[in-house]
């Protein structure tokens, strides 16, 4: 190993990146773009759901019910059908995803302090929206029930459910709060494994790798010359993501920078290992791109990055243990939202360390053997 050679390789890498018109925007605009996309689109809260109202009661109480729904901010009245048939049309035609029917007699029932009835109909074709809508609706109705009858007098029911839910850590259930910490890990995965494997395969494709191997550089020189620049870039990307997340999206950060940073660095080893393996499996940059995509899909799906993994079938759930992204997601999310400490997170750290070091060493051991062939 020679510091002079490593320094030269790093210098070369930065000169190349600075002249690559495609690479530069990808490296620094991509994290922001991803954050904005995930933050606003995927992570957007279910709001302003279209609501159809069939009010056959027309009393002060029935108007209060409708007000309670609209003032929550989650629902906007989009249709006011006058019959069950029209209500069905509104739901079928997609003018509304949620409908409430207030049958005649609600006002009288409230006055008489006996049970009143409200029907809530939810379009279940989008399971995510409908699940959230059902939760909102039952919450609103439970709240109304308290107002009408006083606490404990829960005589109004919606679909037989009267749930009292309290959400910990992320009380407003802002999806962006779980998305931003996850993005830190995901961007790290992207920029180290993808970008680095691209950079290595490019050298092989252009023949420069062969030229390097006639010089006295060793594989440690070469690897460090590649790893260090992309690590540095990843750190810059992480900082941008972190700052935009905390300052713009107002994501709370309750944990320790040290635990988050340490976890991410450990995870980076796995990402780098994956990058090395991809670069060994690919002859061309296109192949490397496709291989990365192929590997990324299961990582996104089976890590809890976008979809919960608890409900997966058992055989698939077992596979999630093999994905280092799974562990780092728990670490960063717990750190951001719960302020968890290393002591609480050590099982995740242990598992991730095992996988990361394993993958990294595997990549490393295969690296020199096949590089020049």
């Amino acid at each position, binding site marked *: 190993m020679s510091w002079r050679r490593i320094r030269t390789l790093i210098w070369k890498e930065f*000169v*190349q990146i600075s002249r690559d018109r495609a690479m530069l925007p990808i490296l620094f605009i991509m994290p922001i773009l991803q954050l904005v996309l995930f933050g606003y689109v995927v992570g957007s809260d279910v709001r302003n759901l279209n609501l159809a109202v069939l009010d056959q009661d027309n009393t002060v109480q029935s108007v209060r019910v409708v007000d309670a729904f609209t003032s929550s901010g989650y629902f906007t009245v989009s249709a006011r059908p006058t019959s069950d048939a029209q209500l069905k049309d509104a739901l079928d035609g997609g003018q509304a995803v949620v409908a409430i029917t207030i049958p005649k007699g609600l006002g009288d029932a409230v006055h008489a302090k006996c049970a009143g009835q409200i029907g809530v109909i939810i379009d279940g074709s989008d399971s995510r929206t409908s699940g959230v809508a059902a939760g909102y609706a039952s919450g609103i109705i439970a709240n109304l029930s308290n107002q009408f009858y006083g606490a404990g007098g829960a005589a109004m029911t919606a679909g037989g459910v009267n749930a009292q839910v309290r959400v910990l850590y992320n009380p407003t259930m802002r999806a962006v709060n779980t998305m931003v910490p996850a993005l830190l890990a995901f961007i790290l995965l992207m920029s180290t494994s993808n970008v680095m494997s691209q950079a290595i395969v490019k050298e092989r494709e252009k023949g420069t790798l062969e*030229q*390097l191997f*006639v010089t006295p550089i060793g594989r440690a020189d070469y690897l460090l010359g590649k790893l260090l620049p992309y690590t540095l870039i990843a750190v810059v990307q992480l900082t941008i993501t972190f700052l935009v997340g905390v300052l713009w999206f107002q994501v709370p950060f309750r944990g320790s920078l040290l635990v988050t940073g340490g976890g991410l660095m450990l995870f980076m080893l796995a990402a780098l290992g994956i990058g090395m393996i991809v670069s060994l499996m690919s002859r061309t940059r296109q192949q490397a791109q496709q291989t990365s995509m192929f590997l990324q899909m299961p990582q996104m799906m089976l890590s809890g990055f976008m979809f919960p993994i608890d409900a997966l079938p058992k055989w698939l759930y077992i596979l999630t243990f093999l994905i280092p992204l799974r562990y780092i997601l728990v670490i960063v999310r717990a750190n951001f939202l719960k302020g968890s400490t290393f002591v609480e997170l050590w099982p995740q750290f242990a598992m991730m360390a095992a996988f990361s070091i394993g993958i990294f060493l595997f990549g490393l051991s295969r690296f020199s053997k096949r590089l020049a062939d």
Partner: protein
Amino acid sequence: MADRTDSVETAIDVRAITRVFRNVKAVDDVTLAIPRGEVFGLVGPDGAGKSTLIRMLATVLAPTSGDALVFGHSVLTDPHHVKPRIGYMSQAFSLYGDLTVQENLDFFAELRGVPHRDMASRSKRLLEFSGLTEFRTRQAQFLSGGMKQKLALAATLISEPDLLFLDEPTTGVDPVSRREFWRIISGLHRDGITVFVATPYMDEADRCDEIAFMTQGRIILRDTPSGMKGRVPGRVIEVAVNDYRAAMPVLRALPCVHSLEVSGDMLRVLVSKDADACESTLRDALTGAGFTVRHVTPSQTDLEMAFATLIPTAAKNSDTSDADILAVPE
């Protein structure tokens, strides 16, 4: 770092080297010794295994079996002692297209540990003699084909290697740049640098001290260019005739004609043994067939003709025994 004081007189000592790619023997049991200071040319058709052989000698590809010693160091077990002494120019341009000429030179100088105090003077000298001084700040990808090759050579020379491997360095390069390139190689030869060059061009092969002909992974002929030509049985007669295509079957039918080839609008005829007698035989046969003969003159054998004549025999012999063909004649 270039240690020219060691006592090894053989620059490259190839010992039964073989490389197999998926059951295909790209290089098949090649044994070869190349003395120090020689310009050694490797010729042969595409796919003969020239690049594979060079890549093994340059330590970038591991042999399947056999070994090669470069200045006494094995490419297999001791590549770290080989690399500092050699330079390697692969067939495709293999410098960084997005770095400038100067940056490429500096990059390879740093990697190869050229002392900082020498770097500026060496790169200045190399840029001058390759004619690239005015293009110092241009990115390598925007250079012409010939300039790219000269830059690649300059980058290889910056560490002052004792041995250069050049894999078809002038393929796709214009004739003027090719000549300049070989002028540089002659200069290196005068400085005592050993050059191992693969080339598809016969005129380039002719400028080497020794040449070897490689086909199907084997070296089947090895000699000096003049020795190669001297082995051709018979002599060459140049024939200029009004319709050379029509004249070819007439000449082939003659018993004294061994073979012939077209060169421009003339025919080069290889005749066996007695050239003087044959000269008139050719002239008579052509005039008799109604051709207008412009001239019939004895000429020199060239490498192309030598290979055309020698290869079929050599290839046949190499199937049975390698030894007598590989032996360098006195």
